[in-house]
């Protein structure tokens, strides 16, 4: 080990140059290739009772909406719908999106290296299914919903292209709205169906009570001259009471059904208002640097730089055939060491 350390100390440039240059080059490359587009849309949201499925009334509406949005992003069907809504299906099918890797993009910028870009491509070399999976992953990794305050929701995209970002965020907002509307519609229909059944049941009970009352009156007609016997009068009063109850139940059911229909209609018509796009998808600034990506690549550059430096030191040590020390004299030639003159000139003369 000592010979390598000595070689490193004697030839500092041999390892310092690659250890500095390589990370520097990688950092520059990372800065060039790690620039990302940033697109965002601002949404105003209020969670209506019909779509509040989380059951948490403590969370602000924007948080609930963001959680719901991000949970839905976990599903492939939602992401697939976003891709379709963004109009990227054909590009995914043809392998044009998610696109090339950063290295491929860099190579593709220069005519001389353009032919090499294909070797570093990602999706273009895969089949349709692979491309689809890559696209689904790209949607998952590039889009996120973040709450700002109680009612504002930011849906952001971070990726390669501003145009793609705008298309994806637009697609995501539309898909989410559409799904919310569908969900509200389903819930409203379920409530209407419930009260319709209630009305039908109440109506049936009312008709039965009416039929029983009429049958009793037909069987026991009243006479002004002869009052009904007490048992008969009591039975009639009971039947009339039952009829009244059934009638009120029927009327109540009818009212509830009517209310439900009104509320469902209101819910459907105000669903858009619960998720209003305040700011359409746009790029607030130019391309931004992906610091994490750049830092990671630079770290890799540092590791490889030092590795290359160490390799050069090892090669230099191995290839050095010169006599270096007094130990070499005895070890290599087996001769007496008569004297050792230090390097006086190096002392500064």
């Amino acid at each position, binding site marked *: 080990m000592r010979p390598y350390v000595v070689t490193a100390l004697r030839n500092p440039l041999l390892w310092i140059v690659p250890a500095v240059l390589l990370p520097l080059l990688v950092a520059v490359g990372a800065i060039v290739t790690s620039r990302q587009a940033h697109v965002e849309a601002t949404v105003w949201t209020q969670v209506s009772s019909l779509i509040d499925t989380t059951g948490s009334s403590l969370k602000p509406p924007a948080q609930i909406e963001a959680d719901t949005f991000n949970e839905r992003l976990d599903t492939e069907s939602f992401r697939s719908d976003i891709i379709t809504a963004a109009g990227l299906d054909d590009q995914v099918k043809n392998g044009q999106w998610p696109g090339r890797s950063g290295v491929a993009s860099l190579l593709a910028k220069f005519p001389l290296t353009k032919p090499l870009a294909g070797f570093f491509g990602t999706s273009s070399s895969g089949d349709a299914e692979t491309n689809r999976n890559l696209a689904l992953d790209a949607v998952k990794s590039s889009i996120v919903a973040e709450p700002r305050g109680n009612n504002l929701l930011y849906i952001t995209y971070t990726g390669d292209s501003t145009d793609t970002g705008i298309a994806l965020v637009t697609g995501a907002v539309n898909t989410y709205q559409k799904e919310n509307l569908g969900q509200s519609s389903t819930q409203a229909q379920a409530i209407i169906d419930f009260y319709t059944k209630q009305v039908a049941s109440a109506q049936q009970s009312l008709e039965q009570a009416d039929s029983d009352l009429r049958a009793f009156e037909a069987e026991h007609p009243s006479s002004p001259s002869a009052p009904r016997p007490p048992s008969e009068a009591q039975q009639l009063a009971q039947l009339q009471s039952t009829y009244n109850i059934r009638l009120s139940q029927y009327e109540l059911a009818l009212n509830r059904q009517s209310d439900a229909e009104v509320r469902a209609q209101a819910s459907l018509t105000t669903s858009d208002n619960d998720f209003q796009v305040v700011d359409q998808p746009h790029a607030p600034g130019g391309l931004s640097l992906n610091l994490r990506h750049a830092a990671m690549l630079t770290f890799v550059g540092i590791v490889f730089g030092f590795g290359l430096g160490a390799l050069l030191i090892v090669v230099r040590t191995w290839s050095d*055939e010169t*006599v270096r020390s007094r130990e070499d004299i005895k070890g290599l030639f087996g001769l007496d060491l008569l*004297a*050792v*003159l*230090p390097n006086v000139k190096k*002392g500064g*003369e």
Partner: protein
Amino acid sequence: MRSQKEEVTTLPVPKVRRSAQAAESQAIPGPAREEMVGLPELLASRVVRQALQPLAERILSLPGSVFCIASAEPGEGRTLVATALALMLSERTDKNVLLVDANTQRPCIHRLFGVSGSPGLTDCLMGESHLQDAVSLVGTLSVLPAGRRNDTRLLFRTGASKRLLEEMGRTHDVTLVDLPPLSPDNEEATALCDWADGTIIVVRANVTKASDVEKAVKTVDAEKLLGIVLNQEEEEELPRWLERLL
């Protein structure tokens, strides 16, 4: 590494003679001025002298009196070692010491001491001069320059060189011969090693390849090979924590 600058003192250095002979010596073809850069300062360095002190004492204790200072490649410090040893022995002992410049292709010792480059070793080999006439006295040290001729390689293989070395051995207590690099092409180097009583090889750390040293060692009779002087060793002093770690 500890700075050696303060170790360089004004210890005796070769006294440069600014004589007419010295002026004449500048005209000798093929000198190697670059080999002399910094040499006087190194010769004055206490560190160098301290490092060579044990070797100087050992030379005095060895049988024989003619020793060659050789190396595998040029610029490894032969002249420094030979000259420093010669100066130390001549100054600190009462021995009659002769320093011979046998590097006929790139002579430099005459410049170092400011003496005439001719007559010298090659003139003696050609029989054009006697040894005592060719030797210059610099302080207590006798110096034999390389001589004017540089086409006398084959002469070194003849009995003339053997006789000359024997004469040096007879007339001086210690003779140190600064050889050209040891290689099969340098006939004079290998020949003088054969006639001398012992050979010291100078190796420059971090410069001389081990394979070249091996080749040089093979050209010298193993019995006459005294050992190696390691020049310009850079012993790295690692931080204590690193030493412990290693």
